[in-house]
C-alpha cells in the first residue's frame, strides 16, 4: 500500500466525507478551535519561559508556576491536535504534499521532543543554570513559533 493509497483511503473514509461535505462553517469552526488551542498552548509556554528566565513571578517556585501552566498547555495541545487531525483527515491529499505542512509537522515533532526531553528537565530543577535555561527556552520558542509561521503559510503555498 503506497502513501497515495493511504491518503485516498483516509479521504474516502466516512469521517472525511462528514467534514468535507458539511457546511463550510464546520471547517471554519475547526480553524477557530485550532487557533484558540494554539494560543492557550503558547500562553502557557510563554509564561513558563519567562519564569525559567527569571523575568516574571520570581517570588514563586518554578515548579508551582509550571504545574499551573501545564494544565493550560495540555488543554491547548489537546484542542489543536484534535482539530488539526480532523482538518487533515478531511482533505489529506491537499495537505500532505504541501511544503509548509511538511515543515510544520517536522517542527511539531521537534517541539514535542524539546518539550519533554529539554524544557521539562530544565523546569524540574528549581535553579537551572543560566545557559541551560536560555538554551531550552530558545529551542522551545523557536520550534513552537516556527509551527505558527509554517501553519500560516499552508494556506498560501
Amino acid at each position, binding site marked *: 500500500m503506497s502513501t497515495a493509497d493511504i491518503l485516498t483511503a483516509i479521504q474516502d473514509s466516512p469521517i472525511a466525507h462528514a467534514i468535507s461535505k458539511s457546511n*463550510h462553517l464546520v471547517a471554519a469552526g475547526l480553524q477557530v478551535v485550532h487557533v484558540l488551542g494554539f*494560543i*492557550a498552548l*503558547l500562553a502557557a509556554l510563554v509564561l513558563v519561559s519567562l519564569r525559567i528566565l527569571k*523575568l*516574571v513571578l520570581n*517570588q514563586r517556585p518554578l515548579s508551582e508556576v509550571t504545574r499551573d501552566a501545564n494544565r493550560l498547555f495540555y488543554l491547548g495541545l489537546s484542542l489543536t491536535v484534535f482539530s488539526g487531525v480532523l482538518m487533515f483527515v478531511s482533505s489529506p491529499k491537499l495537505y500532505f504534499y504541501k511544503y509548509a505542512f511538511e515543515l510544520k509537522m517536522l517542527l511539531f515533532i521537534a517541539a514535542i521532543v524539546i518539550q519533554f526531553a529539554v524544557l521539562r528537565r530544565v523546569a524540574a530543577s528549581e535553579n537551572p543554570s543560566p545557559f541551560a535555561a536560555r538554551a531550552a527556552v530558545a529551542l522551545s520558542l523557536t520550534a513552537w513559533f516556527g509551527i505558527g509561521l509554517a501553519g500560516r503559510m499552508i494556506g498560501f503555498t
Partner: protein
Amino acid sequence: MSSLIAIAEQIEQLPISVAIAESQYAFPIIEGVHLIGLSIAVGLLFITDLRLAGVILRRVPLTQVLHQLRPWILGGFASIFITGGLLFLAEATTLIENPAFKFKLVFIALAGINAAYFEFVIAKKAGAELDRPVIPAAVKFAGVASLTLWTVVIVCGRLIPYLPSSP
C-alpha cells in the same frame, strides 16, 4: 460609507500596501507574526484573566501577576497592532465590508473598555483587597469578561476569510 470606501481604496493603492499584497511571502509572514504577538499578548492576558477568576496561580498574589505580566502584554499588543495595521493596508477595501472584521473591531473596543474599567475603577476600589485569598466578585467578573471578549475577538479574526464581504 462611500467616503470610507474611497479612503480604503486610497489606502490599498499606497506603495507599501501594494508591496504587501503582491509579495508571495509578506502577507503570510506578517500574519504569522500577528499570531505570535497574539499568543504573547492575549495569551498572557488569558493567564491574568484566569488568575482574576481564581482558576490558576492562586497562591501568587494578584498584584504580582498584574504588574509583572503587564510589560509583556503591552509589548505583545504593540506587535499585534503594527502587524494588524500592515495586514489592513493590503486588504482595506474588502476588510471594511467584511462582517467578521467589523465585529472584531467592535469587540476589541469592548475589551479595551473592560480593561480600562478594571484598571481605573475596579482595581482602584479593591485596593489592598486584590491580594486577599477571597477575590472580590467584581474582579472575578472583569476577568471572565476579558477572557470572553478576547476569545470572541480571536474567533472573529479567524472567521474573516470564511464570511463573505457584504457592502
